[in-house]
């Protein structure tokens, strides 16, 4: 299959007080169309940095990053979901979700229709007049997902999206992401600290080393998206193997 995302010898340096911090070094990665991938690695290894490059927010990198043959800035079909701060507290659910379409300059009737559709799909229509502060953590992340999906992105980037949720809500959200992925066939890249989540949602799993981050292991994961896999021995074996990988990195 043709790769949607290609990263070749990516390096990102930060400068702070005239000191250079290399956050990412020699990162190589390929992701075919419609794959879901998870990315795990120790704290501070540059995972968020990688996503900000892919989302076109950090343009100070060297190396090659291509999304469908375009640079992240040109492409503009990428959505990014963060752990917090995803939603604007001063906008209602409705206004949060429609904002992207509005900025894109889409006609009012069309964006209202699309907003309503996605809110209904995610079971959020009744909450549309609420402010983020009036929602539970899970509801908030669902709104964040709605806000991203309404833009019909080709690549969905998620940075520890569910880490502040309780275990049950978290599983619900994982199921939701899975369902959406199966329906839309987006390409997904998910950062997580939760190894089980990485195994459940990632057809490919990338393991990164400590700072400066680079990819030290890449594996195919046939168990991804299998609801029944959560209980299987294979699932736990893979998780254990990843865990030991992370320890050594």
């Amino acid at each position, binding site marked *: 299959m043709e790769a949607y995302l290609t990263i070749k010898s990516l390096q990102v340096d930060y400068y702070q007080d005239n000191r250079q911090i290399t956050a990412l070094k020699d990162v190589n990665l390929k992701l075919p169309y419609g794959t879901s991938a998870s990315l795990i690695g120790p704290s501070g290894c540059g995972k968020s940095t990688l996503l900000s490059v892919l989302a076109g927010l950090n343009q100070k990198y060297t190396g090659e990053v291509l999304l469908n043959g375009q640079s992240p800035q040109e492409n503009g079909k990428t959505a990014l979901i*963060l752990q*917090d*701060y995803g939603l*604007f507290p*001063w906008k209602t659910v409705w206004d949060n979700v429609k904002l992207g379409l509005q900025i*894109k300059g889409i006609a009012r009737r069309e964006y209202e229709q699309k907003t309503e559709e996605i809110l209904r799909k995610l079971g959020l229509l009744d909450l549309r007049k*609420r402010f*983020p502060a009036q929602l539970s953590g899970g509801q908030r992340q669902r709104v964040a997902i709605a806000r991203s999906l309404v833009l019909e992105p080709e690549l969905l980037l998620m940075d520890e999206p569910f880490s502040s949720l309780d275990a049950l809500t978290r599983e619900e959200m994982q199921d939701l992401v899975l369902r959406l992925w199966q329906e839309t066939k987006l390409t997904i890249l998910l950062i997580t600290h939760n190894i089980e989540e990485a195994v459940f949602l990632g057809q490919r799993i990338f393991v990164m080393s400590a700072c400066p981050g680079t990819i030290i292991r890449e594996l195919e994961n046939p168990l991804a998206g299998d609801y029944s896999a959560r209980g299987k021995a294979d699932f736990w074996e893979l998780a254990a193997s990843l865990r030991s990988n992370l320890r050594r990195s």
Partner: protein
Amino acid sequence: MFSMILKKLTSQSLKTILTLVFLFGSWQLLALILQTPALPPPGEALKSLGAIFVSEIVGHLGVSLYRVVVSLIIATLLAVPLGLYLGKNKAADQISAPLIYLTYPVPKVVFLPIFLILLGIGNVSKIVLITLVVFYQILVTTRDAARNLAKEYVLSVKSLKASEWEIYRHVYFPACLPAILTSLRLGLGTALAVLFLVETYATREGIGFFIMDSWSSLAYDKMFAGIIAMGLMGFVLYLLLDGCEKIFCRWVNP
């Protein structure tokens, strides 16, 4: 819903009434203790307020209200965009910070004579002075609020390819609005104080003039009627700002 609002309103007006009773009670007590014509009991002041409100006070109050409101509006229109701009742009902020901090503490009222010479004794000099004082308060508060905005919010709209204008409109302005309204409330207090001061110089209009004029003619009941009227004007303006906050910043305490 409606009954809840009604309940809230009645409980609020109850509080206002209690506050008034307390204020006038203390005043009455003080007047009884001091027994001086310089502090007439509230009853007399209120009676005088009723008698001369339409004939004398309304005109002066209107002029004062005009001066304060116009000043606040101009100060807001100038300070809010500039404050948001400085809070957003680090370089501009760093260049302007010394200038702001050097000129902020200078008591602007000392420029009144200069303004009177340059701009005449009409409304312009007064409005310019009040505007100048309030401008700084709003500017500094707005700038600090914009500076402290979590940059994730900005990244989040930037990733939607928002223009500069859209970043201001959807992020900086609404995020800083609660701080802006707070600074306006503080600014209103300052504006009223400065108003009183400028109205005691070279003018024969305005509630400040009316109060000082009554004082110099020893009409203490009139003087206190003027003070009550000025207090009421401030109160109504505060209520207006509170209303704005309730409508536009519902998200803060939903």
